[in-house]
């Protein structure tokens, strides 16, 4: 969105309270959604739960095309549509709910830096694994991505998306990386997160912030999704404080709502 449109939207957003019928759109959970999109969607859900804002999850096969920026998930609140965690956090802040108000400037800088680290390394690694690793692509991704569509559209869309993702990987320099190098990067990222978390309950001690939501979304999805090889999962399992962190957030924010999201299988 251009700057003017964004300013306009936040003005309007500030005027109305959070409605009861806010909805979050993502792809079909059982058959279509992929690892990276699921992670994003879970992160947004966790964030909204932490802010105590009610949200209903709706699954649509064409969620990616409905979204204003082409990325899922997106939320439909009142008569505005906002996609991706960053803009959603700002939108929610304009409505007066924020998780990071208690942080000082240095901590806010750190939080933003760690969110970028997760996006830069974990998300890119997930995309790489899904779209550039031949085994996973053949067995899982192609089948899932095109599943709602009839032949030959399912193949065409899957190949188109794969080509796009590969282009992006090449532009940022990940095109020549092997799977082992990618897994090593994931390990480094998890190590950094684990060291930052230490023995605290959340990243910024007592209260969860959007960073916690984002990390939870990614790690939980990695831990509970079955892929052709389990190495990604194993890398995360090496860090016990991250496992405890995911369990803690799941118990506090998801289990009492009855959302049993602990059994996501992708095949």
């Amino acid at each position: 969105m251009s700057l003017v449109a964004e300013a306009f939207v936040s003005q309007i957003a500030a005027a109305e309270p959070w409605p009861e019928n806010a909805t979050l759109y993502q792809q079909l959970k059982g058959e279509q959604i992929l690892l990276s999109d699921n992670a994003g969607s879970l992160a947004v859900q966790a964030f909204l739960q932490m802010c105590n804002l009610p949200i209903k999850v709706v699954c649509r096969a064409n969620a990616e095309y409905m979204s204003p920026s082409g990325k899922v998930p997106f939320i439909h609140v009142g008569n505005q549509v906002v996609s991706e965690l960053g803009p959603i956090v700002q939108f929610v802040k304009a409505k007066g709910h924020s998780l990071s108000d208690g942080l000082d400037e240095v901590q806010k800088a750190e939080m933003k830096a760690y969110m970028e680290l997760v996006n830069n390394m974990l998300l890119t690694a997930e995309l790489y694994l899904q779209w550039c690793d031949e085994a996973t692509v053949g067995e899982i991704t192609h089948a899932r991505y095109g599943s709602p569509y009839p032949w030959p559209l399912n193949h065409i869309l899957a190949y188109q998306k794969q080509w796009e993702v590969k282009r992006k990987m090449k532009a940022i320099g990940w095109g020549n990386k092997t799977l082992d190098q990618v897994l090593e990067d994931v390990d480094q990222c998890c190590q950094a997160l684990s060291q930052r978390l230490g023995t605290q309950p959340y990243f910024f001690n007592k209260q969860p912030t959007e960073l916690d939501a984002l990390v939870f979304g990614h790690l939980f999805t990695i831990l509970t999704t079955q892929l052709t090889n389990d190495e990604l999962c194993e890398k995360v399992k090496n860090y016990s404080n991250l496992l405890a962190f995911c369990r803690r957030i799941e118990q506090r924010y998801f289990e009492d709502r009855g959302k049993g999201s602990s059994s996501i299988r992708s095949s």
Partner: protein
Amino acid sequence: MAAPLELSCWGGGWGLPSVHSESLVVMAYAKFSGAPLKVNVIDNTWRGSRGDVPILTTEDNIVSQPAKILNFLRKQKYNADYELSAKQGADTLAYIALIEEKLLPAVLHTFWVESDNYFTVTKPWFASQIPFPLSLILPGRMSKGALNRILLTRGEPPLYHLREVEAQIYRDAKECLNLLSNRLGTSQFFFGDTPSTLDAYVFGFLAPLYKVHFPKVQLQEHLKQLSNLCRFCDDILNSYFRLSLGGISPAGQETVDANLQKLTQLVNKESNLIEKMDDNLRQSPQLPPRKLPTLKLTPAEEESNSLQRLSP
């Protein structure tokens, strides 16, 4: 003198040892960790356009990207992060990711995509470093690569438009600069009093933005308002790159000194020779002065004789 570690990178200008961000990161890290690095300014390579510069060559291997080069240097025991705690190491990774995601697109845009800047500053400079005919092709390629990267990481599929993205990336970059400034505060380096990897990265990305003179300068103006970041860059330039302020690398300085030495030696030898010849002349058996009455020479002949005596 054998130089085991050689770095090939783009050259310098405007008071910087190198104008290319990634090369500068590696050079700064080498200075901080004390690695003996011999810098080769490259001028003729296709690798630059594939983003492979800077390149570190040792006897056995060739390492190419900044992250890998820094890892390699660390394994060789040139470690600038020795005194950092685990948490600070994690912070380093996070801030580097922040710089790459938020600041790099805008820096790329300022250097390579913004037409005024590109055609008046960047392209002539790189073209002057690259011999003809590559100078016609390479800068264009690098510019397209930069544009591609910006659009693919920030643009929206399926139609990628630059204008929508421009405002966004500059806003993100300014925010990132503010965050870095907040984090630095009043301390000398990011983690206490000794520089580390993060300082190398921040310096590498900020210094070209700070020093190179551009016609379109919105990001530079913003940076100049953050005085602690400017002070940070100037400090590092003054303390670690003092010899190279004229654009000559330390290795270059040494060869200049050696040449100077050779020249002085030659001049000394010459003057010694001249002295010797002079001495010989003085010590050679002198003919007795002509007695004027005995040999009646005309005054003209006398003069020519005396002239002949004096000339060598």
